[in-house]
């Protein structure tokens, strides 16, 4: 499995595109800007390009090939209908600044998706434009800042549990807040007492993940929210794990003020090897007035209108500004809406139930061979957390992870959350079959046994992947980020 780089395969004068002939010189005004020669970029004809990328693709593992039991990352099946729909010319081939009369269908997609997100979360409003989960977090925190500004307050602390995703503190800092950490209780949940102690006039709010990254439901979220609200703060909920409760629980009923929704996690838009994401943020009535531009509203005439800079004066003057050039991730909206309509209110509920059922099945069939620190805290939600405790001397979570590759699986999420040493966070998702889970469980159990028995061959895993373990230290020490020739 070797594939040369395009710089080794191609040539600047090779081309996989034909053009209609043009025989006019550039306009005179352009002459002083012209480049001396064509860019030094390798070209390939179509047969060569198709082969290059097809061959490269085969060095990837993917959901279409097997499970990704990635806790908190939720890699589920991507329905092909979604791809078909997103490519309808009426969606794929419309410009973001076309006259609004010519894009009513696109605006209606945004409106329908927004309506579903509001209904499913029990919130007042949704900001659709954030481009990814972390961007949604930022949007939520900026809404909080804007609300505080409107109240004339300058609270500058955000409380974040130890078990939070790295994006939570990073986003809080990016939004200009100071981050204070909240410990976890021994049963894997937020320490409510410790949190309450920190509340005060400097606290803008808390960021809580629910279900949390230990795979547990934060049963006291409503209590926390009440306390935060009483102290003058807002509750941000990290919605990365919303897929565990979609259709079963509405965050709005728990006192949440803002929550982003990763459309790829809960609503199956493709991960695409790392993006693009989409992170709409649902907002409580308290934060809704501050949602950024642009957004859609339905007018008295039945038409759908964009609210942008020019018409924000008409009752939307508190909008905190603009986060992106256009309307957000339309291509993801069409896919997510297609997924939602396919499942319906009943199917989405089934999604959450099957996701939780699958995770508990893994938890209960593996807890005898791998310690599950919070297994006694009750059922898990959509992911099961194990630790490396009890492996033989010198064996760690990494060995289990790389061993899974040789068994034909993607590793689970490792060393996260930070509250458990050598954490292994396993999320099967609802689109894995029982037979597939049984195969995974058998592999995981076998690896655990081998790591306990001190099987040295695990240290050099993977053996059957396109590459053996890669030297990440060398990569970082002397970064080679572009082809050197």
């Amino acid at each position, binding site marked *: 499995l070797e594939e040369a780089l395009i710089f080794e395969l191609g040539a600047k004068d090779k081309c996989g595109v034909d053009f209609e002939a043009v025989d006019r010189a550039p306009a005179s005004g352009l002459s002083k800007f012209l480049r001396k020669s064509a860019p030094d970029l390798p070209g390939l004809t179509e047969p060569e390009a198709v082969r290059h990328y*097809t061959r490269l693709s085969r060095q990837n593992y993917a959901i279409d090939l097997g499970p990704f039991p990635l806790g908190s990352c939720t890699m589920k099946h991507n329905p092909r209908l979604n791809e078909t729909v997103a490519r309808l010319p009426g969606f794929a081939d419309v410009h973001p600044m076309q006259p609004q009369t010519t894009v009513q*269908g696109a605006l209606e997609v945004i409106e329908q998706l927004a309506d579903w997100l509001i209904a499913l979360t029990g919130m007042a409003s949704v900001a659709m434009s954030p481009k990814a989960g972390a961007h949604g977090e930022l949007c939520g925190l900026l809404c909080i800042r804007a609300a505080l500004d409107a109240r004339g307050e300058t609270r500058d602390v955000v409380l974040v549990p130890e078990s939070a995703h790295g994006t939570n503190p990073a986003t809080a800092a990016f939004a200009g807040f100071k981050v204070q950490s909240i410990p976890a209780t021994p049963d894997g949940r937020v320490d409510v007492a410790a949190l309450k102690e920190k509340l005060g006039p400097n606290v803008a709010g808390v960021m809580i993940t629910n279900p949390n990254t230990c795979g547990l439901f934060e049963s006291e979220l409503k209590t926390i929210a009440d306390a935060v609200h009483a102290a003058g703060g807002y509750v941000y909920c990290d919605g990365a794990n919303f897929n565990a409760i979609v259709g079963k629980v509405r965050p709005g009923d728990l006192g949440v003020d803002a929550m982003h929704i990763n459309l790829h996690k809960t609503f199956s838009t493709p991960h695409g090897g*790392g993006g693009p994401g989409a992170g709409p943020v649902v907002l409580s009535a308290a934060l809704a007035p501050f949602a950024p531009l642009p957004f859609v509203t339905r007018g008295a005439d039945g038409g759908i209108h964009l609210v942008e800079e020019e018409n924000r004066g008409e009752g939307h003057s508190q909008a905190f500004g603009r986060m992106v050039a256009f309307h957000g991730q339309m291509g993801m909206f069409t896919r997510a809406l297609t997924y939602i309509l396919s499942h319906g209110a009943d199917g989405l509920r089934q999604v959450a139930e099957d996701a939780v059922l699958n995770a508990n099945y893994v938890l209960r069939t593996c807890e005898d061979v791998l310690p599950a620190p919070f297994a006694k805290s009750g059922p898990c939600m959509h992911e099961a957390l194990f630790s490396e405790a009890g492996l033989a001397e010198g064996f760690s979570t990494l060995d289990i992870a790389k061993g899974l590759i040789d068994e034909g699986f993607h590793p689970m999420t490792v060393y996260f959350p930070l509250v458990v040493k050598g954490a292994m966070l396993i999320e099967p998702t609802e689109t894995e079959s029982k037979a597939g889970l049984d195969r995974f469980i058998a592999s995981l159990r076998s690896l655990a046994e081998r790591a306990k028995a001190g099987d040295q061959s695990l240290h050099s895993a993977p053996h059957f992947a396109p590459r053996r373990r890669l030297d990440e230290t060398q990569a970082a020490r002397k970064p080679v980020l572009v082809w050197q020739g």
Partner: protein
Amino acid sequence: MRYLPLTPADRAEMLGTIGAASVDDLFADVPEEARLSGPIEGLPMHASEMAVERHMTKLAAKNLSAGSAPFFLGAGAYRHHVPASVDHLIQRGEFLTAYTPYQPEIAQGTLQVLFEFQTQVARLLGTDIANASMYDGSTACWEAILMAARVTRKGKAVLSGGLHPHYGEVVRTMAKFTGDEIHSLATGLTAEPDDAAVIGAIDEATSCVVVQYPDVLGRIPDLAAIAEAAHAKGALLVAVVTEPVALGLIEAPGTLGADIVVGEGQSLGVGLQFGGPYLGLLGCREKFVRQMPGRLCGQTVDAEGKRGFVLTLSTREQHIRREKATSNICTNSGLCALAFSIHLTLLGGEGLAQLAGVNHARAQAMVERLTRIPGVELLNHAYFNEATLILPRDARDVVRELAEREILGGVSLSRLFPAAEGLDKALLVTATETTSLEDIEAFATELEALLVGVPA
């Protein structure tokens, strides 16, 4: 449900293994009062693939797609012909449904593509290095300003009046919260871009000047002169490219002295999609590498000495560094970057130059034809594939009236800059290789009918 593999028998068996009486037992930690007892009311139940497809097709049909009418919009999003092989390849499950390549042994496909992408982007922008893509051009622009502040340890950015107004809004919105100082120059209807004003605004406190190239009115700033002025004051030049196809014809910003070059990559491989997902490009000087935001892919070797690729310098990133990260960004625009890279590989350097030549030639044809209409004048001295026309009437009205005649006739500057004055009659029009001479003629005919009353 066609997407859920568990059968009722599977569920029963699994509950037995778990030792739960029902699936509701698994939700026991959810307070009773927060548990919904059935599907959320008022929403429809699941639907067949055929029914959903019909519903979505009906919505799509309510839009006037760009391909079904003469189309002349640009302003930061460009309609180009994307070869069929691009979409075919990005739909391969191994690309489409792959995870972020944190496990490099089984993600070399995505990683090699990102490494190739970074190299292509750096060469295209004329920079030493580039990252693996960001959300879009506007957010990349803001990230570049933050990066310049980290590099220069200064906090004031000067924005050219030729910067896309949405980009400016994003920057001002974010800066409002971070406390960075933004000095935004006004946008005026001059034949030349505001280079002089930009240069005049640079002072010792300036971390960077942000200049779009070509600018949002289609004019082309003299980056070399601005770079010189900026560097003289210890500031960086951040060049913004919203139409990368232009770089097939005009010199790369990095070559002209830009320190950081950001761009919107949508033109290559991605399509219009009503504004997203797109992809942000970011290239810079090598010495800034540890101040870069976003994902980076680097070359290394595996345990057997074979060349391989990994995500690297992640100590800058949120999942390692948490609140001390260079950015909170967690994703890139992976699939869009793949599409961009494939399209650019199909073009190659000479092909990109040819494509740019066709774009410019079509724009020339468009400008020549439209300015033959009495009262229509070209603003720009120079332009690539879009230019600003001055009409004898309010351009917003003209755009609306053209739409009624199924002509998508450009973007009025007053839609782009609603708060600015004096731009009412300015219309930004764009042509690409997808613009036919028939399209131009249809546009001109209808525009003439609107402006001078000739019956259409």
